[in-house]
């Protein structure tokens, strides 16, 4: 304010006498007086102007400020609006589609987006989805409709694709044998004229917009059963629409921005990209009280199966007590789509350059992921390890929270696993029951940092060794007699049917009927009795109260176990030494449980359920529990089937598949 002070001093004032005296004094010097007056007037004018300017300045500043805050609300609108204009000019895409017995390809604007001429592969209908505004490939699928049920998968997929997308179809080799009417009708509804009449070894290409125009279709009939139709090449033009039309108008939130990014890039995830009623991508499950695993990092090991990863992450993020900040997804390879899925859910993902091949590649990926996890979370004492083809039970974290202290305190434990190898629909019953087992089931498990850092990491199999990491972890050199804790009813479900060691048949036989807990907040009942010594006491108590079954009956028959509920039964099988699993394997086979290698045993004892009764199997005389066998009982011996050469080799390979 200092600078303004002179003002009042200059002003002519009320002190009239002084003013008059001064005036008369200067009367004679008229010129000087005039000058003074003009000076005073000028000064006053300047003061006024400066003041006005100041007021204007202040007002303007205030106005700007207001504008700034007003902009808060306009800002987003403006930002969204701006990029829309330049894109609205229409563009045309040249599309080329080729269909033949041994080769298919699709080129968009001269760029090959699909080319498949591999032999014995890629049979069936290839489908490509393009974004109608950008022309980017959003999904690529092949449905082997020569084989059963694949057409159902195709229908499912086509139904998930958003309206307005551009669909490209082409057949390689054969695509009609198991193409049922439902599927044909779907194709017809997309505008195909030929689809209803597609038959054996026809060649066919089709380009159309879902729910809109048809851009072209070509078809070549197979002249005879033994020959294929002539190759067909369809060339057509597709008009692109504006981005605005291609996008949904969801409210502008952080979540929807992620959704928008995802949905403009990929297709085939169904309602997550639905304009009207999109499925949530944030789940906010109930938090767990006293969650002991809130700060435990979760490593999700993934490959290039983005649809699996999507399903897996949904179930993981819906589990009670999940902490999304602790989740890291490790992707083996520079695949974009899995990363898109990870970003959709707002999680962090890390890509890993593939090292080595097949099993060794998986094994190296595991090592890198585990090391990275403990580096990123240096405070963590444990890590939860999950795979992309698992459903996670709603009480997964509750299960771990209740049991994790055991892993910290009991040196004789190797891991906690959410998976019971023998926990099938007909052999698992009690969600609150836990076991100790000598095998390492994997499929959703907790690893102790000290175990990894001090023992496993330094001697992890090197890339040139084509070992399975899980088989390696099960080896006695690594396991050193330690055991894992598992639940009776699994807290994970293995849904993957395509994978390195996996196929539909194998999955159906060994995984489909696995029991999976869906009950929230299960209170585990025997946690403390799982410590090393307490567990022995517990087993002895169980065996003490168990009723010995009638060993003259066939254990494979249903009648072997009486029609009761909630009882404890025991049977004794022959097991000459620790590694003699001949009878057990036969028993497992006829009980339709995991029989490819030995799982779920604890000192020659297996625990499962039959007809809702707890069912104990003791191997005599190798098991220390053999002493519980009444002398009158002869252990059951089951002969392995007469040798088929192949039968031995298969389990060895298949056993590796489990993870």
């Amino acid at each position, binding site marked *: *304010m200092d600078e*303004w002070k002179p*003002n*009042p001093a200059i*002003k*002519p004032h009320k002190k009239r006498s002084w003013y008059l005296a001064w005036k008369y004094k200067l009367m004679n010097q008229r010129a000087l007086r005039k000058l003074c*007056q003009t000076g*005073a*007037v000028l000064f*006053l*004018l300047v*003061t*006024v102007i400066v*003041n*006005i300017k*100041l*007021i204007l*300045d*202040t007002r303007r*500043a*205030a106005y700007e*400020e207001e504008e*700034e*805050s007003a*902009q*808060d609300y306009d*800002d987003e609108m403006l930002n969204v609006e701006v990029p829309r204009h330049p894109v609205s000019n229409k563009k045309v895409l040249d599309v080329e589609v080729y269909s033949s017995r041994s080769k298919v390809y699709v080129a968009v604007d001269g760029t090959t987006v699909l080319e498949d001429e591999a032999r014995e592969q890629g049979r069936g209908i290839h489908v490509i989805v393009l974004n109608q505004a950008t022309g980017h490939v959003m999904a690529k699928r092949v449905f082997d409709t020569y084989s059963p049920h694949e057409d159902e998968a195709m229908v499912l997929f086509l139904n998930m694709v958003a309206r307005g997308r551009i669909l490209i179809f082409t057949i390689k080799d054969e695509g009609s044998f198991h193409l049922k009417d439902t599927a044909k009708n779907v194709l017809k509804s997309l505008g195909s004229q030929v689809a209803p009449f597609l038959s054996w070894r026809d060649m066919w290409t089709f380009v159309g917009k879902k729910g809109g125009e048809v851009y072209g279709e070509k078809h070549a009939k197979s002249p005879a059963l033994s020959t294929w139709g002539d190759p067909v090449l369809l060339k057509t033009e597709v008009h692109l629409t504006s981005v605005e039309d291609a996008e949904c108008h969801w409210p502008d939130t*952080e979540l929807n*921005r992620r959704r928008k990014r995802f949905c403009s890039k990929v297709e085939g995830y169904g309602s997550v990209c639905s304009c009207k009623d999109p499925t949530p991508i944030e789940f906010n499950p109930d938090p767990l009280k006293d969650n002991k695993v809130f700060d435990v990092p979760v490593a999700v090991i993934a490959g290039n199966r983005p649809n699996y990863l999507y399903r897996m992450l949904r179930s993981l993020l819906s589990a009670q007590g999940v902490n999304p*900040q602790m989740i890291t997804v490790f992707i083996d390879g*520079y695949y974009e789509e899995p990363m898109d899925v990870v970003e959709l859910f707002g999680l*962090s993902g*890390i*890509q*890993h*350059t593939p*090292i080595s091949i097949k099993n060794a590649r998986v094994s190296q990926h595991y090592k*890198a992921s585990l*090391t*990275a996890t*403990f*580096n*990123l*979370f*240096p*405070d963590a004492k444990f890590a939860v390890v999950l795979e992309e083809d698992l459903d996670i039970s709603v009480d997964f974290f509750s299960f771990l929270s209740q049991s994790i202290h055991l892993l910290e305190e009991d040196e004789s434990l190797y891991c906690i696993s959410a998976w019971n190898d023998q926990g099938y629909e007909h052999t698992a019953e009690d969600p609150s029951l836990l076991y100790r087992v000598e095998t390492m089931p994997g499929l959703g498990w907790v690893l102790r940092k000290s175990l990894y*850092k*001090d023992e496993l990491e*330094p*001697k992890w199999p*090197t890339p040139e060794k084509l070992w399975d990491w899980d088989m390696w972890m099960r080896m006695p050199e690594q396991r050193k007699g330690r055991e894992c804790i598992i639940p009776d009813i699994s807290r994970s479900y293995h849904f993957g049917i395509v994978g390195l060691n996996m196929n539909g048949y194998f999955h159906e036989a060994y995984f489909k009927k696995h029991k999976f807990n869906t009950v929230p907040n299960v209170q585990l009942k025997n946690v403390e009795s799982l410590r090393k010594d307490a567990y022995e006491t517990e087993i002895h108590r169980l065996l003490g109260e168990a009723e010995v079954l009638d060993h003259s009956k066939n254990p494979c028959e249903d009648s072997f176990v009486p029609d009761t509920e909630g009882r404890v039964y025991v049977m004794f099988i022959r097991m000459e030494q620790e590694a003699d699993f001949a009878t057990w394997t036969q028993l497992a086979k006829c009980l339709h449980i995991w029989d490819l290698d030995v799982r779920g045993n604890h000192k020659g004892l297996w625990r499962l359920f039959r007809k809702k009764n707890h069912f104990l199997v003791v191997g005599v005389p190798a098991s220390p529990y053999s002493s519980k066998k009444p002398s009158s009982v002869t252990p059951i011996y089951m002969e392995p089937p007469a040798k088929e050469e192949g039968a031995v080799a298969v389990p060895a390979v298949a056993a590796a598949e489990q993870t």
Partner: protein
Amino acid sequence: MQKINKNAVLALLSLTSLVFLLFQLYYYKFYLSQKNGAVFSKVRGSQSGQDSTRWHVVRKFLGLLSSHNIPVYLIDPLILGLVDKDFEQIRSSPDGPSPECKYFCAPRDFTTFALLDKTWKHEVDLFRTAEKMGFQWLKIINKDPRLDGMDDLSGIEIPLHYIFKLASHAIHLVVFYERSGNYLWHGPLRLKQHMDRKFVPFRKLHFGRYPGAYEKPELLLVSIDDLKVQIPKNPSSFLEEMSHSRFLECRYREARAFFQLYPDDASLDAVEFRKKAKSLLHLAALTLNNLGVNFWLSSGTCLGWYRQCNVIPHSKDVDLGVFIRDYKTDIIPAFQKAGLPLKHKFGKVEDSLELSFQGEDGVKLDIFFFYEEDDHIWNGGTQAKSGKKFKYLFPKFTLCWTEFVELKVHVPCETRQYVEANYGPDWKVPVKTWDWKSSPSNVQYNGVWPVDEWDDVIQIY
């Protein structure tokens, strides 16, 4: 007539001028009470305006972060220095209004805060709100060093620094990451090509010239100049820590290249030795840290860190260096208490002191004491049977933090010169036979201990 008119004009003008003066006063008051001074300083730009600008910017910033539940703490060395002087008073009156603006009103270009990475989610919303509040912000990202040591992970970039600027004041927000070895790390501040080099006077920033390593601080909520902020519970020790916090990352890329040339020994023996050496080093670090003795990785252990980021499996011991000025008589009893009996003691405090402790499982821990001269630093060696003395010369060095086998430890900042002095220009080539009396390239014969001193300077247990 004319005179009256003139007087009337004069009166009118002075009246108007008075009215405007009142207006002016009104606006002035209005802005002081309503606004945060930023607008006002835009108009006035006077010296006194900037002071309150800083205070207002800090207040706005703290408000922004607390509305997003992001806990930050003050690490500005200048303010902490002032705070430290009046620490008792500040601590005793956490809520009392302060009579004058003492700390946040000193005119500075920026104020520095720290943020623990794991306490927040990387929210986009924060920045949107910041923009709405008038902040301009700059994010400095770089590779995540926690994953740098691993082959083949695609480099994940993480935010290392944020700068929020409002009016003429900037907030420097340093992101701290937890790393293996139970310490906090912040990254260097490096501008990328396209970045605005004049966004703030980067050179004047207190953090970011080098990466730094810190202990996890205990925090204290205090009220400074009527602003509630968290500060390190012990500002003076934080400032002390800050003065030598420089951190060196292991040279992972070079280490990988080394292993390409000389594949790692993955034998069981090597794995076992590394495990033992690691646990011995952890134990030694714990013991020395408890005594408050500064130490660094020396000789073979230092070479292992520098060349391959790991323990050299064919080395047979763990080597540490300590300045003789840090020597404490408690060292020997403390190690004995930790289960590491003294194996031998050569030399004396005045000359060529060297201690060896017997670790579990046959791994030896050597502690060499270093003597500082005007232009070099040296440590001594003694041959037990002959009483011969040796001297190992090193160029002068300072100490930096690094991470080694999940431990935050010191190494000489000028590691290359240190290693080269010790192992010569061919230090990159592994040598399995090593004679400590002749192999080092910096060894000098240093006479013989007088026989009557032998009992004292050559003690073997």
